[in-house]
């Protein structure tokens, strides 16, 4: 199943907490149900992003590790 990505966020090269802060900002520009793709190179973002989604009620649809890069797809819920 292919889903439309509504926005892409390149957070590569940024360290904690910037990937999370930028994710939060990007999500605020989306409508409920839309998808955000985030690429980051920060090891910490792997756990932190999923914790962020848990706490904020957003749905972490996928999280893929590719060498030193992480790609996340988040569905805006609230």
């Amino acid at each position, binding site marked *: 199943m292919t889903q439309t990505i509504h926005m892409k966020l390149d957070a590569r090269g940024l*360290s904690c*907490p910037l990937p999370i802060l930028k994710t*939060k900002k990007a999500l605020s520009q989306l409508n409920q149900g839309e998808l955000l793709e985030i690429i980051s190179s920060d090891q910490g973002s792997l756990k932190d992003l999923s914790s*962020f989604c848990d706490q904020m009620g957003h749905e972490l649809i996928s999280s893929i590790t590719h060498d030193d890069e992480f790609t996340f797809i988040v569905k805006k819920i609230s």
Partner: protein
Amino acid sequence: MTATQENNTQQVRDISMNEFDQQVFDDHFNKRFDERFKLKMAEKEAAHVPSMTIIVTKGTMDMAYPPFILASTAAALGWDVSIFFTFYGLSLLKSDLDLSISPLGNPAMPMKMPLGPQWLRHVEMNVPNLLMAGVPGFEKMATGMMKKTLSNKGVASVNELRDICVESDVKMIACQMTVDLFDWSRDDFIAEISEWVGATSFLPIAQKADVNLFI
């Protein structure tokens, strides 16, 4: 059976009947109460906005990061955040941020070259205290190296993090006593300071917060 005896029996029956009712009532009430209580507590928890207060007392570059990182992250999670800047911590609110870091008396600070060949960057230099204290400009050099390391690793600058905090409505509270103590002027500080107060005004905010930190 005499009239008195009959009366007594009737009373006994009434009491045991009442006790029975009471028991049924209590059981029912307790069950309902437990159900409602659970529901109400869950409602209350869902409506609760977490809050954090931080007391910032240090004004060096290394001590500027933790409060601004924690505050900006908490704000991103929707928390209510207030930071009280006191003593040297107040300098983190100056309009012109010029923060330094000192490796002197800071033995846990790694001393590594942020430039040059890779093998050199991994060498931890063991600089004697005497040198750190005695060589003019050593602190300035260490600060420059730390800034380079931070930007190499994609860590935001203190200025950037402070701006994010301000944008995300983190309440910046400044200690009035400190500005008087060091003969500073309120004009030297950012305009976004929400109030200039003392401990008496800050403590009630801290009292109601879920998380209190002292940095």
